[in-house]
């Protein structure tokens, strides 16, 4: 149940428009329970076959949903990325040569915020992809375990190739974004740990509507939790996560409505 709880938390933390797009893990678990209690595989193979088909059908539907959502977002990101690049270029051309330092700074400030948020959204999409994949993998494992089926391996191979899991494009956009951020938008500076904590607290407390920062923190912590040592570890399980500045990130939860313990 731990993953289910984590997933639920993640869904609660995420953008409102994304909430419906996640895997309905709990429901699928119920389905498995139903199947396993009603049909021992040996007893009635045809019925079992139908039940499995039903299960697969549901999973396929979910996957379709993920794909659709993911590709929509991806398309948006492609467009926005291009637009941001052009914006930056425009601002630089327009104001870097002339005087008017303040206007330049203002415009750059806006762009900076937009780029950072954009970066954040893309990363959160990657997180969406990954958490749904993890959920699928777990559900399949449960299915095989409960019903004695052999669904997991072939099915997961299929999932690996799905658009929603082939995140290379978004990953590239993220990297490009990071390059832009590092080279163009921010001077490099090192911050001390204590001030970072305070900053984090303020950010979480007063973040404007989108809540990207809070979301990101939540995602990191959820990942850490999910990958803690589990009782059902096998050679398909992921090892525990070693988060740098984990303590720091935990502190960012200060004003979060839903503490992730």
């Amino acid at each position: 149940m731990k993953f289910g709880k984590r997933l639920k938390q993640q869904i609660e933390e995420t953008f409102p428009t994304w909430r419906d797009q996640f895997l309905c893990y709990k429901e699928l678990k119920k389905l498995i329970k139903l199947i396993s209690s009603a049909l021992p595989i040996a007893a009635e193979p045809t019925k079992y076959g139908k039940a499995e088909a039903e299960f697969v059908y549901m999973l396929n539907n979910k996957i379709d949903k993920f794909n659709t959502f993911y590709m929509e977002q991806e398309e948006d990101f492609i467009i926005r990325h291009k637009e941001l690049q052009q914006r930056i270029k425009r601002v630089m051309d327009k104001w870097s040569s002339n005087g008017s330092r303040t206007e330049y700074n203002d415009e750059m400030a806006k762009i900076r915020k937009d780029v950072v948020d954009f970066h954040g959204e893309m990363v959160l999409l990657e997180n969406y992809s990954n958490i749904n994949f993890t959920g699928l993998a777990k559900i399949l494992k449960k299915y095989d375990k409960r019903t004695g089926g052999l669904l997991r391996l072939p099915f997961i191979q299929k999932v690996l190739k799905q658009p929603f899991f082939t995140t290379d494009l978004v990953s590239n956009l993220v990297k490009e974004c990071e390059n832009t951020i590092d080279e163009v938008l921010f001077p490099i500076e090192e911050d001390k740990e204590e001030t970072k904590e305070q900053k984090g607290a303020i950010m979480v407390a007063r973040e404007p509507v989108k809540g990207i920062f809070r979301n990101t923190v939540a995602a990191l912590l959820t990942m850490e939790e999910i990958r803690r040592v589990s009782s059902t570890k096998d050679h398909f399980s992921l090892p525990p996560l070693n988060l740098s500045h984990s303590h720091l990130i935990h502190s960012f939860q200060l004003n979060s409505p839903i503490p992730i313990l």
Partner: protein
Amino acid sequence: MPSSFLALTSFKDKYSTSPSSFQVSSGREVMENSASLQESSLAPSNGTLGNSSLSPSIVTDHMCASALPHVQHSHNPAFISQSSRDLASLPPLDASFSQSTASLIHTQGNKDVSWSLDRLQMFLDLPENTPAPNQLVESSTGVLASEDHNKKTNWQEWADDLINVVDPDWSKILDNTNVLNPRVEVPKPSGDISKQQPQFHQNQLVPHGEFSSHAYPSSTAPPTKPRMRWTPELHEAFLEAVNQLGGSERATPKGILKLMNVEGLTIYHVKSHLQKYRTARYMPETSEGTSEKRITSIEEMKSIDLKTSIGITEALRLQVEVQKQLHEQLEIQRNLQLRIEEQGRYLQMMFEKQKKVEDEKGGVPSSASDDLLAPLPGSKHPPCNNGKSDSEALEQDHSRTGIGPGNAGTNEDKSSSGVSTKLKMLETESTVHDESGFSVSKRARTEK
């Protein structure tokens, strides 16, 4: 296919009512329709239709599974319920709108599952006389492919019909909401809904020509996946076409489509993409007005707490840092997942092959198993970070030694134990891999 037309006409009827009622009622109704398609007792002539739609689209190793196309065999009822669900789950453009639809969406989602649970229960109660219990899980893929082709044309017509019905209503409604709320939180396409329909039915798009290197991987087999996946290159071509035609406001989808001249691209794709593009352009300009408010709120933040005040830039830098870390972890996790599954698959394959060899038995098992075991997991992905190349080499060594015992033995016992040894090897391998910050000791401790 009478029942499919039944679904179509009722769908249309429902559609002429207001959007919110459409979302709930037609969704439910459509599901009922598709449920009736499935249940033989209710739909008289739909023996084959009902059952074929149940066939899952599992890609086995025997299929030439090149990327996506084979995979998503969309079933008829799936189409109906799918598209209705998608229509229903469209992100709202307005705050108040979102309130009502959010609850609708949520109930819709749950309804899916409970509906399916109900159906399953019906299944379990049904007597054995359900028609033609043909291949459900095993080997149905070949059958499915051919069936799908036949169905495709029908769905094309259905989709086209639907679009003509859909188009006027939605664009009108959405234009209104668009005017009311230009500042879109998450830029979503306004006119995209109607275009969602055909995207399910279009053939898999593979933009040819100079885009194919980055475009969605093309397959030789006829594509079944209808969704269009945009790439930066494709978008560039789009932009070029738009600029040639005088800008986003003046350019028409038809003109753009012609100029782009990309095989497989349809006007619907261009239309929806244009919508998105316009929204994206419109947003930053309006944000120039609203961003002032945002900046002042951050200024307020500063003035309120002087001791621990942070500059905007610094706050942003912190945000980026956290985001970067999440990204990095996600990449690592993903690669790990890929590799784990790859190894699992390889192992399974080998196990099966070995079994086959032993079953066919008699003669030369040792040389045969040598052949089988010789090809190493060359299909392993080259590691992302350079730091992993060492672990990769290590892994290869382990695999070789793992295969060693398998080679030596020829009788059943040894090979089966060889497999389990390999399994153990994999476990330790993945432990060793975790050099990029994972705590190896923890994992070793918890190992069974």
